C-alpha cells in the first residue's frame, strides 16, 4: 500500500500542490501566511500613512512625564507630580484590589445561593431562584450604576457624622457608613507589635502542625482527635496573651469627626466607587457561581451519598469527604472562568469613577495626553497578561485534578 502512494521520483507537477495531500497542507499554510502578512502590512501601512497625514507619531515618552491629576484611592504613594507610569501602576493595583475582593465575596454569595437553591425550604429555594435569574439577566453595567446610585441616595452624608454633636453617631465609635464610602479604624503598629505578629504566624503554623498530627494519628491508630476547638484556641489564646504581655502595642486609629469640616479624618477610607463596584461585581457574578455550584452538587450522583451513608458516615462528613471533593471537580473550572470575567469586568469602574487601570491609563491619561493608540495598546497588554496568568493557573489545576485513568 505504502509503495503505491510513493510518487515516482522526478514527476512533480504543479497541480500536486493542490491535489496531493502531502503538499496540500503546505500550500494552504503558505497561502495563509501570505494573506496574514499582506493583512499586517496593509494595516501597518494605513497606520503609518494616517499618522503621517495627521503629523503624529507613536511615542511612549508621555509615560515618564508628570500625570498632573490626583487619584482618590491609591495603594502606593502618588501625587499629581508623579509620572503617568506611576498613575498606571496605581490603576493596576486598584484593578487587582477590586478583582480580588470581588472574587472572594462573589464566591461566598455564589456558594450560599447555590446551596440554598437546593434547600428543601420552598420559599428559600424560590427566593434564590429569583435572585439568580434577576442578576443573570440584567447587564452588569446597569447593576453597577444602580448600586452606585443606591449608595449615593440612601446612605447618610459624611457631614452628618461631623462636629461635636453629630446627626449620626459612629458605630462603636469607630465605623462610619457614608455615601462617600466606609470609614474604619486603621491599626497603629507600636513597639513590640512585631512580636505579636510573630506569635500569630507561629500559631497558624502550629494549627497546621496539629491538624497534620491528628490526621496521621487517625490513619495510624484510628483514634479521632478533635480539631475544631483546639485550632480556634491555638489561633486566639497565644496572640491575646502576647498582646497583653507586650503592653497592648497595637492600637486603633479611629476616624476623627472633629479634625475637618468636610470629611472624617484618619482611619481607613474605602471609597464609595470601590464599594459599589465590588458589591455589584460580587452579587452579579455570585448569581453565575450559584448556578455552577448547584450544577456541581447535582452532578454528584445520589448513589455516592447513599453509599457514604451506608458506610456509616455522618451527614457533615458525607459532605466534606464524599460530595464536595467530587463536586469541586465540576465547580472549579467554571469558577475560575468567572474569576476571569470579574477581572475583565472591573474595567467598568469607569462608570462609577473608581481609579482602576481603565480609568487612569485608559481614561484620564489618555484624555490629557491624547495618546490614544499607545494607551489602548498598553491597556490591552495588561489585561492580556492578567488573563493569561489566570488561564495558566487554571490549566495547572485542571491537570492536577484530572481523573487519573489507568
Amino acid at each position, binding site marked *: 500500500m505504502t509503495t503505491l502512494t510513493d510518487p515516482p521520483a522526478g514527476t512533480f507537477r504543479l497541480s500536486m500542490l493542490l491535489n496531493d495531500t502531502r503538499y496540500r497542507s503546505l500550500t494552504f499554510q503558505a497561502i495563509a501566511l501570505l494573506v496574514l502578512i499582506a493583512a499586517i502590512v496593509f494595516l501597518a501601512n494605513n497606520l503609518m500613512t494616517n499618522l503621517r497625514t495627521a503629523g503624529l507619531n507613536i511615542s511612549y515618552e508621555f509615560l515618564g512625564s508628570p500625570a498632573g491629576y490626583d487619584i482618590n484611592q491609591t495603594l502606593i504613594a502618588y501625587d499629581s507630580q508623579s509620572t503617568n507610569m506611576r498613575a498606571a501602576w496605581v490603576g493596576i493595583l486598584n484593578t487587582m484590589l477590586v478583582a480580588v475582593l470581588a472574587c472572594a465575596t462573589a464566591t461566598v454569595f455564589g456558594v450560599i445561593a447555590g446551596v440554598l437553591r437546593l434547600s428543601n425550604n420552598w420559599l428559600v429555594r424560590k427566593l434564590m431562584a429569583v435572585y439568580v435569574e434577576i442578576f443573570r439577566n440584567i447587564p452588569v453595567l446597569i447593576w453597577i450604576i444602580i448600586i452606585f446610585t443606591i449608595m449615593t441616595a440612601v446612605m447618610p452624608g459624611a*457631614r452628618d457624622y461631623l462636629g461635636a454633636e453629630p446627626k449620626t453617631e459612629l458605630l462603636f465609635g469607630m465605623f462610619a457608613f457614608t455615601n462617600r464610602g466606609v470609614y474604619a479604624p486603621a491599626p497603629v503598629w507600636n513597639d513590640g507589635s512585631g512580636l505579636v505578629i510573630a506569635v500569630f504566624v507561629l500559631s497558624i503554623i502550629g494549627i497546621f502542625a496539629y491538624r497534620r498530627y491528628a490526621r496521621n494519628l487517625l490513619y495510624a491508630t484510628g483514634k479521632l482527635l478533635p480539631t475544631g476547638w483546639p485550632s480556634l484556641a491555638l489561633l486566639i489564646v497565644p496572640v491575646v496573651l502576647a498582646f497583653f504581655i507586650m503592653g497592648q502595642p497595637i492600637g486603633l486609629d479611629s476616624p476623627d469627626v472633629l479634625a475637618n469640616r468636610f*470629611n472624617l479624618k484618619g482611619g481607613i477610607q474605602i471609597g464609595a466607587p470601590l464599594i459599589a463596584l465590588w458589591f455589584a461585581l460580587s452579587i452579579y457574578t455570585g448569581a453565575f457561581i450559584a448556578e455552577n455550584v448547584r450544577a456541581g452538587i447535582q452532578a454528584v450522583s445520589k448513589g455516592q451519598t447513599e453509599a457514604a451513608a451506608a458506610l456509616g458516615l455522618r451527614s457533615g462528613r458525607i459532605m466534606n469527604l464524599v460530595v464536595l471533593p467530587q463536586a469541586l471537580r465540576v465547580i472549579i473550572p467554571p469558577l475560575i472562568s468567572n474569576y476571569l470575567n470579574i477581572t475583565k469586568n472591573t474595567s467598568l469602574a469607569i*462608570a462609577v469613577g473608581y481609579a482602576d487601570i481603565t480609568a487612569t491609563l485608559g481614561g484620564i491619561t489618555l484624555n490629557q495626553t491624547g495618546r490614544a493608540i499607545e494607551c489602548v495598546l498598553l491597556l490591552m497588554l495588561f489585561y492580556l497578561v492578567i488573563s493569561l496568568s489566570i488561564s495558566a493557573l487554571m490549566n495547572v489545576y485542571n491537570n492536577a485534578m484530572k481523573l487519573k485513568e489507568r
Partner: protein
Amino acid sequence: MKKTVFLGALTVAGLAAGAAAAGTLDDVKARGKLNCGVTTGLVGFAAPDANGEWNGFDVAVCRAVAAAVLGDPAAVEFVPTTGKTRFTALASGEIDMLARNTTWTFSRDVDLKFTFVGVNYYDGQGFMAPKALGVSSAKELDGATVCIQTGTTTELNLADFFRANNISYQPVPIETNAEAQQQYLAGACDVFTTDASGLAATRATFEAPGDHVLLPEIVSKEPLGPLVRHGDDEWGDVVRWTLNALITAEELGVTSANIGEMSAAAGGNPEINRLLGTEGNLGEMLGLSADWATKAISASGNYGEIFEKNIGESTPIGLARGLNAQWTNGGLIYSPPFR
C-alpha cells in the same frame, strides 16, 4: 499571484492617501454635509432637544460654518464625542471640525497637531458649594471631597490649584454631568468643579438653585474654541473667518433681523459691505460664494444673538456676557478686521 494582489492593495492604499490630502473644504463640498464634533450633551452648549434637534452655543458655530460653505445651516451631521474620542475623531478625519467646548492649550495645539481657529467663549474653572456649608473661598476647601467631570483640563487645573495652595482634597471623577450633579446633590461630594459656564448651567437645573453658591475663585483660563486639523490652512481659514464674521457682525450691528435688507445692496459702511459680499471679493478668496458671511449670520444670528439665545441672561443658564462681551464693551471678544 498573491504578490500582485498584495501590491495592488498597497497601491490602492497609496492612492487613497493621495486623494484624502485634497483638502477638507473640497471634501465637505463634495459630501454636501459638514461633520461637526460636539459634546454628548451639555445644556446650552450642545444638547439634543426632545425632537432630536441639536441646539446650543457650539452647535450654532457648526451651523454657521455649514451655512457659509454649503449654504444650508441644516447640512450638518453632528457627531457626539466624549473627552476621550474627540481628538481621534478629528485627527482621523471622522469629523471636519470640533466645536466641543475644548480648551485651547499649548500641547493640544503643538503636540496633538490641531489648529484652534479662535475663541468663542472665554471660560474659567470655578467651584460650586452648598450655601449651608458656609464656604466663602475655594482656599477654605482643605480636606473637601470634590466632584470633577472627567475628560477635560479640569483634573489638571484642580490638582495645580490645591497643590499651589498646599491644601488637600479627595477627587471624585465622574463621567457625565448628570451623574456628577446627582453625587453633588446627595452630598457625596462637598463641591462640584467644572467650567464656570457649566456650573451656571448645572445650577440652573436644580430644584432650589438659591441653596448653592459659586465660589469667587476662578482657578484657570479656559479659552474654548472650535478646532481643525493642522496642515489644512484653507479649511482652517474658512472656520476661523466664519467665527470672526459672527463676531464682527455683532460689532457692526448686523443682526438676523436686518441682514436681509443690509445684504440686498451695498450700504454706507464699507466694512459691512465687505463682510456681506456686496463689495470686494472676500468670499472668492476663501473659495466660497460672495454671500458666505450673509448665510453664516442668517443661520442663527450674530455672536451676540447666539449667546443670548443659548446661554444668555434670558435663558435658564443665565450667563452674563462678562469677558465674552465685545471689546467695545470691555470684553475680550475681538475679531480682526474684514479687509
